[in-house]
């Protein structure tokens, strides 16, 4: 092309360039769609974590129409591969990149240093930089609602909990659930089985079966497949969905589900870029901001319990109830949080101990 370019091409080209220059600044971008990149750790069809982020991406497209253009890369392994993918997105004209897994933190920070004009958003991390924001959701607030329902619905007073890895994010969820259930029923117990994986349907199901065989009648999970809830359905007990509404897999068993809703945040951050008001920040949103939502109650939740659960949800939103308000005792019975005191965000984010009633 270039070698055969005529003088006319050149003149036209210059005119176009001059036109673009005169429009430089914010308005130049208004004509072009904002390109937004997404890096996913799993397949978009996992029906869990990545599925939730992709719903957020789709909501952004619906909201902005032609004003945004999104790209996503799925099943990116955490490590060197992630850095390559993130750099590829940053260098191909994307103005905003969402890296949606904890393990993408260092690759994101490295690429961000080389592309100061591109804005990055990293989910569930803790390190920010001038062009890297961090966002996370207070899923444990949803666990309080679940715990309240479990305390009322359970007959045996024992819940099973399929955990992924004993990291603070999972530990705080187990504790928030146990505390809420014990508020209803002080002898409530939570038995934890670790799958040591985020996603292994067979193993999650095996763990759930083992727990049912030991007499639990409520199933909770912090893993990504609907397998534990399926076991609950076939064994005739109840449980809670994780990350997505898992009702199709357990129409009778699902009491409610904790939903990750990224839509509002993704739309807002794209809008911030368009308005030129994007700033690096670190946010931890919950029920109040709508980043965590509860799925509609299942048929096994009696009307009175549903109202009670709603009240708990509203109290958390209003700030009158906190998942971790003392007195809280740990597994050994030692007082960890004094009466009336509340754990700080920092203390919650580093939680590595279990409350009374948890068998883990």
């Amino acid at each position, binding site marked *: 092309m270039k070698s055969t370019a005529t003088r006319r091409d050149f003149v036209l080209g210059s005119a176009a360039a001059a036109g673009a220059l005169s429009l430089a600044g914010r308005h130049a971008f208004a004509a072009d769609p904002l390109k937004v990149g997404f890096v996913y750790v799993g*397949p978009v*069809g*996992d*029906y869990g974590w990545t*599925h939730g982020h992709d719903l957020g991406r789709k909501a952004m497209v619906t909201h902005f129409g032609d004003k945004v253009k999104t790209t996503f890369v799925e099943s990116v392994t955490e490590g060197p591969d992630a850095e390559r993918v993130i750099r590829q997105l940053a260098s191909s004209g994307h103005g905003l990149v969402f890296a949606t897994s904890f393990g993408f933190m260092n690759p994101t920070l490295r690429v961000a240093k080389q592309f100061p004009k591109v804005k990055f958003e990293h989910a569930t991390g803790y390190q920010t930089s001038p062009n890297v924001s961090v966002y996370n959701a207070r899923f444990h607030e949803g666990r309080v609602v679940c715990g309240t329902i479990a305390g009322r619905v359970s007959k045996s007073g024992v819940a*099973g909990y399929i955990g992924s890895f*004993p990291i603070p994010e999972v530990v705080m969820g187990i504790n928030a659930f146990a505390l809420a259930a014990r508020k209803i029923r002080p002898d409530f117990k939570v*038995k*934890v*089985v*670790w799958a*040591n*994986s985020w*996603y*292994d*349907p*067979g*193993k*999650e*199901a*095996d*763990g759930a*079966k*083992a*727990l*049912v*065989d*030991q*007499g639990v009648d409520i199933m909770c999970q912090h893993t990504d*497949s*609907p*397998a534990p809830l*399926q076991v609950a359905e*076939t064994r005739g007990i109840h449980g809670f969905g994780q990350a*997505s509404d898992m009702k*199709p*897999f357990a129409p009778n068993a699902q009491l409610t589900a904790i939903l990750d809703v990224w839509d509002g945040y993704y739309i807002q951050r794209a809008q911030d870029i368009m308005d030129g008001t994007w700033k690096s920040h670190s946010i931890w949103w919950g029920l109040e901001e709508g980043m965590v939502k509860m799925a509609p109650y299942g048929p096994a939740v009696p009307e009175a319990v549903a109202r009670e659960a709603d009240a708990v949800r509203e109290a958390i939103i209003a700030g009158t109830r906190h998942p971790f308000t003392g007195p809280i005792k740990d597994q050994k019975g030692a007082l960890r949080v004094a009466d009336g005191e509340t754990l700080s965000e920092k203390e919650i984010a580093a939680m590595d101990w279990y409350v009374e009633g948890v*068998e*883990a």
Partner: protein
Amino acid sequence: MNPESAVLVMLTVMSAATPLLFAALGELVTEKAGVLNLGVEGMMLAGAVSGFAVTVTSGSATLGILCAALGGAAMALAFGVLTLTLAANQVATGLALTIFGVGLSALAGSGFVGMPVMPLPKLAVPGLSDIPVFGPLVFGHDALVYLALLATGGIGWFLAHTRAGLILRAVGESHESAHAIGYSVIRVRYLAVLFGGTMSGLGGAFMSLSYTPMWAEEMTAGRGWIALALVVFASWRPGRVLLGAYLFGGVTILQLHAQGVGGLGIPSQVLSMLPYLATIAVLTIIAAGPWRGRLDAPACLGQAFRPPK
């Protein structure tokens, strides 16, 4: 543990063992004919996705199971063409088959993620199923669990007591001799490889239709590799494959139970290792103990055969 929950545990162990049993029995027959197919995982996934997709689309689980068997066999056919007709390296081709199967099943199954399916019905014999302990243990399973058990006996009998079984073993022990006395080594091996694919496909179908009735990418999660290890563990004997599969399933389930009762003070990661540690321990005992040298690997295992012109 009361008898009632012991029965429940046993039922879980049986279902955990069934996919391993299918895949390992299929691989045993393949290896007895002298072919090493490392693509078990890929064939299981092909079976899991075709079984699930057909069951959802047609509404018939029977048709789904048939198609799962065909799906596994189709993958095995590709392996056969490459390694038997074209004499490609079996180890490399088998590994490629697994990687290919992971990708292909993900592509084929992408439209079926998040769909529920009715689990396979459990056999319920009026009267008999209600007998305590004995009833649920013997009559409380779905058809595939019984099929796996029947296949164990059937394959054992076929290899030890039939003329066809003898020919298959001859091909695996010395393909030159088998060829010299007039048997078609390639044809026998094709049949064995296809049988292996069929069984892996059925193991996959059990995963996606009964064990966890759904389709998810890479849902077999390494069970194909465990099946390969079980064949060596069982020193190429169907009865021992059964024992190995139940042992492995049992240790997996029991470690989860141990966690549920408070972990006995052992970290969960160590408990998760137990099944694998048990496998290594038994392999070491077989290789170093008084049975040394009696692993009974088919002499021509993994060797390509080119019929002399």
